[in-house]
């Protein structure tokens, strides 16, 4: 900028200036909130777990509603992800909730590739967002964010330790999504077993280097509650949509012959803690971690893989441009080569076909000639025959007329001759 001198004062460490009165920008958070409300929120949960662990029921219980769906069978040939989006409204807040569930996880005999569809799905959501971000004309603020914000990993309540499938899957997912492990159907485990189980799970996760989502403890308002909750991970939850009358209230519970398990009773299970952490306290943080950590990591890897680097700030735009230009030229060159190849092949094919056709034509001609000759021969023969027949006919006619003449002469003379003969005979 040749014509301007921009003088910036107090760059780093801007001084704080005291205000002499009420300016009014303390309404800023409210302005921000209003704008967010009009935009709406979206939240995407991925439930990973074996069939029959109560994933759908837990979602129903968490959001106090009945999402559609039928229980999955155990006979799926591979792991597939089923995604449903719902519009929830509470007072003036609209939430677009997407629940993605794994169907057929852990049902196959060979589970080596079970984690792959999940990882691919998560990557596909990142990819879609990255593409939208890199578009020239983009609509980011209107974009329906489909990246997975939280992954609830359902652990089967064996009471012993994590299965190897769980470990492998969690290890693959921990750098891509916020994992919150939960112990499903935890009414199958007694209290003492539960504590041992939790300790075993946490130690296994730590020893295998799996990074699960830690609730943030840097903000004083929520640090305390998050800190205590972190110690309770993994949460032991129970899901139930049936309501039973306990005392004089209707509560969600499961009834057994030996007692009733109440879902919202903190002494019975950790469901309330999960709901607090997931929805009421940390929803925004989950979304932010997804965007600023997992998505950025994906983006960095993807762009580096494509060959873009930022070296030093000076040459950065140029290296991007050069790399891009080089790639573009490469691609164009390839395209051209392919085109050439195809053209050559086409020309060759045409030639071949032409040659074939010529051959066929020649053959046809030959055949035609032969046939013609055949006909001519036949015709000639016929003519000869005809001629000879004619000759015979004419000869015959001649003889016939000669004979007739003779006969007529003979009959005259013969008459006299016969008379004569008769006379001679008589005599």
């Amino acid at each position, binding site marked *: 900028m040749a014509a301007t001198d921009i003088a910036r004062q107090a760059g780093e460490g801007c001084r704080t200036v005291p205000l002499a009165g009420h300016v009014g920008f303390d309404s800023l958070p409210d302005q921000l909130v209003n704008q967010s409300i009009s935009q709406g929120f979206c939240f995407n949960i991925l439930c990973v777990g074996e069939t029959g662990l109560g994933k759908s029921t837990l979602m129903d219980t968490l959001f106090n509603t009945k999402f559609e769906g039928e229980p999955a069978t155990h006979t799926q040939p591979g792991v597939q992800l089923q995604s449903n989006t719902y519009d929830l409204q509470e007072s003036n807040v609209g939430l677009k909730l997407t629940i993605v569930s794994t169907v057929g996880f852990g049902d196959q005999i060979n589970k080596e590739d079970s984690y792959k569809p999940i990882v691919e799905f998560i990557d596909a959501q990142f990819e879609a967002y990255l593409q939208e971000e890199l578009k020239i004309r983009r609509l980011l603020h209107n974009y329906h964010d489909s990246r997975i914000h939280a992954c609830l990993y359902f652990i089967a309540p064996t009471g012993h330790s994590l299965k190897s499938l769980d470990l492998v899957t969690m290890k693959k997912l921990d750098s891509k999504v916020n994992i919150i492990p939960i112990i499903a159907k935890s009414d199958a485990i007694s209290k003492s077993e539960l504590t041992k189980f939790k300790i075993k799970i946490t130690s296994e996760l730590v020893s295998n280097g799996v990074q699960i989502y830690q609730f943030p403890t840097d903000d004083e308002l929520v640090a305390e509650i998050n800190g205590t909750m972190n110690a309770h991970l993994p949460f032991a939850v129970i899901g139930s949509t049936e309501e039973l009358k306990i005392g004089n209230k209707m509560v969600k519970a499961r009834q057994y012959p030996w007692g009733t398990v109440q879902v919202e009773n903190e002494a019975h299970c950790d469901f309330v803690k999960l709901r607090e952490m997931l929805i009421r306290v940390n929803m925004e943080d989950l979304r932010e971690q997804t965007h600023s950590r997992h998505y950025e990591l994906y983006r960095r890897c993807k762009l580096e893989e494509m060959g873009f680097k930022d070296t030093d700030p000076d040459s950065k735009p140029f290296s991007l441009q050069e790399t891009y230009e080089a*790639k573009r030229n490469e691609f164009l060159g390839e395209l051209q080569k392919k085109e050439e190849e195809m053209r050559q092949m086409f020309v060759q094919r045409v030639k071949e076909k032409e040659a074939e056709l010529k051959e066929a034509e020649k053959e046809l001609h030959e055949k035609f000639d032969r046939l013609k000759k055949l006909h001519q021969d036949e015709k000639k023969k016929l003519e000869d025959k005809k001629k000879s027949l004619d000759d015979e006919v004419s000869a015959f006619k001649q003889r016939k007329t000669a004979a007739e003449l003779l006969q007529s002469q003979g009959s005259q003379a013969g008459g006299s001759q016969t008379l004569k003969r008769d006379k001679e005979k008589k005599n």
Partner: protein
Amino acid sequence: MDPLRQSPSPSSSRASSPRTLPCEMLGYVGIEAVLDQLKIKAMKMGFEFNIMVVGQSGLGKSTMVNTLFKSKMWKSTMPGLGVPTPQTLQLQSVTHVIEESGVKLKLTVTDTPGFGDQINNDKCWDPILGYINEQYEQYLQEEILITRQRHIPDTRVHCCVYFVPPTGHCLRPLDIEFLQRLCRTVNVVPVIARADSLTIEEREAFRHRIQENLKTHGIEVYPQKCFDEDINDKILNSKIRERIPFAVVGADREHIVNGRCVLGRKTKWGIIEVENMAHCEFPLLRDLLIRSHLQDLKDITHNVHYENYRIFRLNESHVLPRGPGWVNLAPAPASVPAPAGPQATPGPPKVGWWAKDNSDEEC
């Protein structure tokens, strides 16, 4: 129920939202707690706001900024006889952090002394446009880094307050030229400066004439009509649009009037109270800029003006990949019709027009 949905292929254009089913919740879940979470996060991070004041010297720009934010942002300069007027337009920026009720605001004010002061004011808007675009450029460069920061520092100008001298007639050619160019790049709020030199009737007539001028020349000042999203916004913004440009008076001295301490200018014939709606429209300006539309100003800057700049830059220099496997969008700007909707860019012709005008701009 959606069938097993496959992940969207990269080559398909992404729908803005999938088929959603509205669901009734049978009890309290606690989703609205996310609003509090948002607030906490925002308060922790703090807010940023960048404002630029443009106008000839002596119109009271620095005083106005001090009055708006009730603090000594600038020393209101009264150039002495020995100080020469600057030969070229120089932009000066000051950044302060102000806090109120726990809300931290990092405020950057950019002043433009020397604007319109020369004898030949041709192209005096170039340095200003250059500065604004430079901020966009900085943000763009940060955004396309491979390893980028968590929170990109936002130095883009969110609002430009243009001071119209109180001639009482109509907009001068310099004003019209400047406003035309700037309203496409940044949110412009024109104000009538030093409005205490006009009577109320003169003010109204002046305002009408200015509004006519703006309409004749197709200048869309903030709040722009095309970005009104719903009926409430329309009503609110229409009320504001009727009063644009605001007739303001700035003052940073306090006087006692009827036992109250007010900011005002003391003259021999009375005290002009800055915060009194009957005297001047300063409260309207303050409410617009700070109390109600600050976030909106930032949003429009980010979603519209910055995006326009980005489209123009990327089309021009192919900085981002557009090869195979990527969605190939954005044909040449001249041939694309402007998309409709509140987030509509003001239209490729305008971007192209800007490009033509700044073809000698170094990128």
